């Protein structure tokens, strides 16, 4: 793989790491490991940990995929490997 190819792959992995960190934090973190502590805070009638496990994490997942698709498009163009 040439230099630019390596840099492209590094940029891709960097983005994946960031997105997966948030993915982990909202589901396994807020929804499971820290749910008890977060339950002391309320979001309307929802205890916050319960909200993350049954609502919040799903909304964040959706947002994460669209952010990923957009950022990946930018990386593709920056390294000139985009389609068309």
């Amino acid at each position: 793989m040439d230099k630019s190819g390596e840099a492209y792959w590094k940029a891709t992995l960097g983005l994946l790491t960031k997105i997966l960190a948030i993915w982990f934090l909202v589901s396994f973190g807020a929804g499971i490991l820290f749910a008890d502590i977060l339950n002391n805070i309320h979001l309307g009638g929802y205890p916050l940990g319960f909200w993350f496990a049954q609502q919040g994490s799903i909304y964040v997942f959706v947002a994460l995929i669209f952010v990923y698709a957009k950022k990946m498009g930018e990386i593709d163009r920056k390294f000139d490997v985009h389609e068309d």
Partner: protein
Amino acid sequence: MELQSTIYLVVGLSFALYLGIAFWARAGSTSEFYVAGGGVGPRVNGMATAADWMSAASFISMAGLISNMGYGGGLFLMGWTGGYVLLALLLAPYLRKFGKFTVPQFIGDRYYSKSASTVAVLCLLTASLTYVIGQMTGVGVAFSRFLGVSSETGVYVGMGIVFVYAVMGGMKGITYTQVAQYWVLIFAYTVPAIFISLQLTGNPIPQLGLGSNLAGSDISLLQKLDTIVVDLGFGQYTTSTAGSTLNMFVYTLSLMIGTAGLPHVIMRFFTVPTVAAARSSAGWALVFIAILYTTAPAVGAMAKMNLLRTMTPGVVMQNADPYAHDSQIKYEERPDWMARWEKTGLLKFEDKNGDGRIQYYNDSTKNTAVIAKAEAAGWKGNELTVNPDIIVLANPEIALLPNWVIALVAAGGLAAALSTAAGLLLAISSAISHDLIKGVFNPNISEKNELVAGKIAMACSIVVAGYLGLNPPGFAAGTVALAFGIAASSLFPAIMMGIFSKKMNKEGAIAGMLAGLSITLFYVFAHKGIFFIKGTDFVNMIGGPNSFFGITPEAFGAVGALVNFAVAFLVDKFTPEPPEHIQHLVESVRTPRGAKAVDGAH
């Protein structure tokens, strides 16, 4: 109109729609048969993926499970949606760039080995077949309950419908029928939820209603629910976990990895025109899935609330004591829907203390205050058992909604089961016709003959699935665990390492797949019997149930995946590097430029 004729009308209309679409979208080439010609836009593909993904289990069972489990039910919600993040980031765009018809074909080419692709075919067939049995049984159940025909007739009718549009249209027919089925099922799921949320909280949006106050009071629905269920000896709704925190963690992870590794979902991303479209299409799929998945917790909690309100009317709306003599309803005065569901045997009442009233509480609680109160009130044990599967189906009746809503739910349940069955059958038939017949036995087969072979394989799969649906091997509960366990422990790691490690070789990948698969099967079979045959379980040999850190067999897929990764890297260390051209193949898979139309060339 009478309830039964309304149901016939609505279900009949939905079937006419599917058949019409099937006729319009006939497949004339292998490309149309396997990948719908490769020209499906990201939003349409997302919608079809959502219908493909949301099965009878999501539509019928999930809210009932959440209703029973409370907070712990969140593992299904997070697990079955979080997997799409993994799919979008780690697999879908790269497999689309690779540009072939099937998942085993990627594994075979990447690991330059027919054995690797054959192992993948084996995993795919086992995972998809076990999954499809559940769908066919679901079709039979939905038919028998709503249309008043026998469960057998239901399966035959379901087979006939799937046969017409899957065999005629292949992926093309399936894709466009799934779009229609998505609308039917999402409408059927959300309409009753909106009505019920409005009744209970005055807020029409169920996702907000669940976090609102009960109508006409200043106490939140969840808080009230917590108070009542704890008073009746159940675990607190908003905090009770599924087993230990570790088990919930691993269970969630297993469902996520399994979701990303299920072939019938992955292959939907071969139908989009570009790599960029594969990325955004995963996002659209999750949007359409999230509409149902964020509604489900409201359906579950509100159904529990409505059930308690039916059993003990004064307790929910006023603050009556559930143990007071006249708090529980008399069996004679129970609503009609209870009588209707009693006939199915899924709802049972047994008057243990002979007072003619229904006592619904957790009689195996350890809470001494509850035990004392129940004894003082003369209760002799819980008298009502409710199968969680009826929660969604009976929900509109419990909330006393009009007949057309009940009919819609019937059509929705059938749409969910049929759309998933069709997607699975396509995965099965393409593995047989493309990976086995063309890939291994007869590489020179002409395109026309391969298309015929594909259609014959599809027809045979439908017959086999129907047969197994009629004579389920008696392991309905174990099958889904097995499908996810296999996808998580064998397919997902092999595909991921194929993309993210240039040096992973065929020895490592095959050893990893076999190790992950065997350890998962070993743990599942230890609990549920060898190939689910009763009496062959050997759970005591491995130190009792859930002996591996308290992890249940359903949650074991993540451990299997870890074993797969570890064994693969170990074997890879001591065996030769993959050839130069494979490393170039990996590089080309990683960059989007040059993505061409998907084709089947081996």
